Every structure is written in C-alpha cells, then in structure tokens.
C-alpha cells in the first residue's frame, strides 16, 4: 500500500451491497407497494430468492447480523411455518410470473434448522413460485452445527453451493470473538462436502478481529489454502459497539490498529492470488474455473446483499424477518423483530416495514457505483449529468484528490481504480455518492471501515 493511501484507511464507508443503503430506507414503502410491484413481474423474469434464518446456537461477539440466540427448536419450527405462509402470499401476488433461478439461505445460522425444515421451505417454494432441478441452491453453514447426514441430505435436496463461516483458525482469536471451532472440525466438514460432490464451496474469513497478527492471519490463510475452497471472501470486521451492544463484549484494546488492518487485508490478497485464486470485486477470491471468477473475468459480476455474485437476476425476493427485496425499482424490507414479522404474516399481509423507491437519479448513482465496484471502472458522465452542478463539482473535486494520490486514473470519461487500489474501491464509491459526507472528513462511525 502506498503511503499516500494510508490516510483513507480510517475512512468509514458503506458496504454498498445496495444503493442507497438500508440506512436510507423509511416507512414510505408499504406492503401494498411491495405487493403491487410483485404483480408487475413478467412471466420469465429470473428471480433470486433469499431466506433469512435469524437463529444461532451461540452468540459470536463480532456479529452484525439480525439474529438471536435460540435454544427452543419449536420456535424455529414456528418461524418456518411463517416463512411458508410468506412464500404462499408472495406466490399469490406473482400469480405464476417470475422464475426462481437461485435461492440463498443466510442468517444467523441456516443450519440451526434441521434439513427437514429446509426441505419444507423448498417445498413451499416449489408449489407457490416454482422450483426446477436447475435452480441454484446455496446455504451458509456453521461447521459446529453440522449434524450426521446433513451434508448428504442437503446435496440430495439440490444444494450445490455451500459457504462455511470460518472467520479465523487461530484459537486465541476464536476465543476473543467467542467462536471456537477447531481446524479438524472444518477439515472434516470440507471432506464430507467433497465426498458428496459439492464443487462450489466457499469460506468466509474476517480480518481486523481482536488478537489477529500478521503471523496468525498468515497461518489462517495457509490452512484455508490447504483446504482448497472454491471461493474465499475476506471481509473487514466492522466494530460498531455503539450500534451493536454485543460487540461491546470485544475488548477494544485487542483490536488491530488501522495500519495492521491494512496489512492483514494486503496479506490475504497476496497469499490467495499466489495460491492461484482470481480477485473478484474488492473482497472475494475464486478459483479460475469457478463461476464467480468467470463472471468477474467476463464482466458479468454483480453485487447483491450477499456480496459479489454471478447471479444475473435483478429481482430479489427476501423472506423472513429483516430481509430485503428489490422488485421493480423498490426496496422493501421486512419487519426486523420476530414479533412484528409474525404479526404481519399472521394477518396474511406481506411483512414490509420500510423501504425506498429508487429515484431516476439514484438509479444512475447505483449503476455508477456498481460498475466501479464490480468492474473496477465506471463512466461518470451519466452521474455528472444527473446531479446538480454543486454536487457534480464536489464529486469532481473528490476524484481529483484520489487522482493526485494515484488511487484512480482517468480513461476517457471513465474512472478506473489504479492497480493495487482495489481495497479502496469503497472509499472511491463513497466519493461518487452524493449522500455521503465530503471526503477528507471522517463520516459518522455508524459505517464500517472502508478497509
């Protein structure tokens, strides 16, 4: 990392898994708006479905997800019943339109649910929305909760993309985040998946965790590379104790300083690239023959709520508490608490609580930021035309500063990230975002570190 770039390290930037981010959602979008957009979906429109499973067995102190520790499995069954009713409600609105092409189970911990319950959710999807053998099924698994035969049964249901929450293999780091899982456990899970033919296996790693050092993270990366997952995502830990009380359990003094954070991020990049992985976006890596790597190489990469993806579907339908849908230019987010979610679903209403209707201008910003993050370059003419002159001038001034520091270069009217500046992509995206504070000042700490 160039010294001139270090000043961007303390910058906090949105993750831009959507634009505008969920922080901008408000109560103006209602369940009726969501229903009417569902009614306009066309017959063969590809749909990407997301199921949020907000339960975990134990609390991981770093977690920023909407989840709760649950010990009573009956409550999970109750939740699955509500999900099935929600699927049915959405199916009635779609009335045969739209084709589910991929389904992602995220959390929380999707495998808090037994495979029988996951099967019941898929059954509801098949009857209300349609499900074929070519629909891609993906699930996030906590390796500590994988039961006997789970992998075989998930594969039999059609799951072919599995991502394991690994975070870090170092026992001291694991203790400091309250997620203790041995290397042997993960290795056994990987072996079982490979035996059953799972050929798209992903690891999630985190840098910026308490007690991480260059040596410990290098060991984690070496173990990761030894297990040879098809994809690796390396996310920066976002420490936001003011918003997320559970993160107060992490001792601030143990967190790596900003310079070390950057070093860890660079180390991850170097080791994975040296091991033959292709860079995908700013935080994903994939083997060259993996569909995600091919999408990146062929310029088909997209960004959705799960991060970088090769899923081409524009329309996303989220099910479960707090999940977000994007249909016909609106974002619609379900009620966040289980009580509110159940109360809507029990009244046979869609559970939309908040959302946002994209304005034509926001659509332009969204497309510009997506191009920058997914392709490393973006034509900014449409953006400058869509904005008021003062905003356009400010964005140009922001970009001038990035250019002086060599973070970006101009290719005609396009801004391109300089080689090696990929990790600063979110900081540059923020410079293009009229909602964000001017570069140079530190934005509100509700946002995660940009690196």
């Amino acid at each position, binding site marked *: 990392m160039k010294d001139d770039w270090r000043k961007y390290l303390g910058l906090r930037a949105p993750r831009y898994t959507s634009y505008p981010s969920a922080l901008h959602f408000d109560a103006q979008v209602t369940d009726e708006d969501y229903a009417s957009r569902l009614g306009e979906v066309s*017959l*063969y429109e*590809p749909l990407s479905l997301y199921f949020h499973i907000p339960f975990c067995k134990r609390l991981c102190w770093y977690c920023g997800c909407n989840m709760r520790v649950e010990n009573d499995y009956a409550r999970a069954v109750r939740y699955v019943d509500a999900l099935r009713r929600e699927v*049915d409600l959405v*199916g009635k609105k779609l*009335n*045969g*339109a739209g*084709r589910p*092409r*991929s389904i992602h189970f995220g959390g929380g911990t999707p495998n808090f649910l037994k495979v029988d319950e996951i099967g019941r959710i898929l059954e509801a999807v*098949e*009857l*209300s*929305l*349609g*499900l*074929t*053998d*070519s629909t891609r099924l993906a699930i996030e698994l906590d390796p500590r909760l994988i039961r006997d035969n789970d992998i075989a049964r998930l594969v039999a249901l*059609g799951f072919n993309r599995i991502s394991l929450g690994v975070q870090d293999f170092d026992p001291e780091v694991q203790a400091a985040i309250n997620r203790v899982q041995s290397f042997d456990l993960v290795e056994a899970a990987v072996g079982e998946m490979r035996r059953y033919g799972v050929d798209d296996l992903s690891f999630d790693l985190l840098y910026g965790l308490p007690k991480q050092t260059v040596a410990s993270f290098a060991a984690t990366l070496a173990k990761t590379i030894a297990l040879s997952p098809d994809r690796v995502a390396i996310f920066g830990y976002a420490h936001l104790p003011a918003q997320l009380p559970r993160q107060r359990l992490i001792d601030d003094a143990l967190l790596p300083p900003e310079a070390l954070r950057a070093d860890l991020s660079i180390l991850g990049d170097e080791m994975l690239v040296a091991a033959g992985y292709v860079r995908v976006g700013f935080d994903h890596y994939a083997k060259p023959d993996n569909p995600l790597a091919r999408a990146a190489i062929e310029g088909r990469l997209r960004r959705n709520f799960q991060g970088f993806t090769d*899923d*081409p*579907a524009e329309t996303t339908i989220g099910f479960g508490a707090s999940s977000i849908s994007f249909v016909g230019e609106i974002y619609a987010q379900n009620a966040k608490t289980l009580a509110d979610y159940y109360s809507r679903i029990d009244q046979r209403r869609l559970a939309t609580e908040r959302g946002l209707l994209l304005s034509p201008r926001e659509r332009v910003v969204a497309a510009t930021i997506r191009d920058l993050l997914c392709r490393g370059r973006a034509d900014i003419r449409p953006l400058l035309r869509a904005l008021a002159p003062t905003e356009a001038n400010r964005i140009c001034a922001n970009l001038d500063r990035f250019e002086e520091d060599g973070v970006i270069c101009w290719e005609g009217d396009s801004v391109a990230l300089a080689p090696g500046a990929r990790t600063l992509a979110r900081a540059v995206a923020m410079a293009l975002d009229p909602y964000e504070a001017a570069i140079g000042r530190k934005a509100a700490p509700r946002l995660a570190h940009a690196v």
Partner: protein
Amino acid sequence: MSTQAQNKDQGCHAPDRPATCDVCEVRGRSICADLGPREFAHVEKTMARRHVSRNKSLMIEGEPNESLYVVVAGSFRLSKMLEDGRRQVTGFLFKGDFAGVRSTDASAYSAEALEDSLVCFFPHRYLEEIAADAPGVKDRLIARGQTEYHKAQDHIVLLGKKTAEERVISFIDLIGRQIGADDKDGNRVVPLPMPRQDIADYLGLRLETLSRTLTALREDGRITDVSRHSVTIPADCVSA
C-alpha cells in the same frame, strides 16, 4: 410426397412445394380453412413444406426469422434462454399450431422438434405482397390455430396453480385438448411426446416431484397407463 433434398441448415430438409394442399391433414381443421379459393391459390403458391428431424431446430432464439410456420405433423418444444444461460421451456407446438407470427431480426425463442415433424411455411415477405389482393390474409391464416402468444397464456395459467397435482393434471388435460387425444372406450389417451425433464421445467417442478405426482395421480385412479410417451385419462375422470 417429395424427393428428399440435401440436408440444409439446422438439419432441416430443403423446402418442397406440396403437389397440392388438398392432401393436407390439418387444412380443414385450422389453417387454411378460412381462405377463399382465389386467396388460397395465392397462399399455395408462396408456401412450402419442410421436414424437421427430431432434436433439430426450426427457429433459433436470437437469429432472424422471416417465415410463418404451421405444424402439419409432429411437435415442437419452445424455449428461451434466461439471463443466467439456462433454458426455460415456454411451451409446446402441436399439429395446427403456428410459430413465427411476425418477421424479426432476432427470434424471442427457439423451437426444436420433439419428433420427426413436418411444417408448412409462408415467407412474411410474400404474405405482405399478396395482402393487397387478399386483405388480412395472415390474420385469417392464424385465426384458428394457436400461436406463441396463446402458449404464453397457457403457461401462466398453469404456473399460477397452487398444487403439483393441479399443475400436472391441468397440463395433461391441456395437451390432450391441443394434440387431440385418442378416444378409447371413452378413455382419453394423451400422447406426451416431450421428455419428463421438459415437462418438469415447464411446470416449475423438480423431476422427482413430477414423478411422485404422476404416481399419486395413478394411485388415485385419475390417470392410468402412465408410459414414457402417453398417459390415459379414464372415462370417469374426463373433465369438460
């Protein structure tokens, strides 16, 4: 009827001009029935017939199409590629059905033969030329047959059904009506010329669910004689 010509593009045989349309099996049923003798003479001059072997394409998505086709014998699968590169079966064409209702630089779907089939085709260019003499000839040609637009309508109705059994039984019934089921002692034998995987894809079901549903329907006696290429709807289950 014809001398076999050399294999041409997409495995279709070169067009033959039928000696006469009098022998056409589907003429009275749907295709040319509404044409007056003078118009008919025009149409007969501009149309030709083509054999399409099983698994060969009549139309290819994204490629130009300049003819209106009518299926004289056999059957076709209509499909389109979704953005993720996977195929979606969007319908089936049977005897008397039309494809290629408009001329286009890029066909919105593909049509592949499920069995050795025969089509008549009418170049749109000629149909327009004779429009002066025979106003509305194209509309009347297709007035009785089903087109790709009707197929889309059928599809959304089927996909809107909420149980696998309803979807499967409605599909068999639909195919029976379109293909013309053989009547055996009041039992309707419905041919299913398409592979099970195509039916599953079309109905938005997993193959295993389709098989399970067919078994359940047979156990209930709502269908009998389930074979690879046909099912029978017993007389007491034949719906209106």
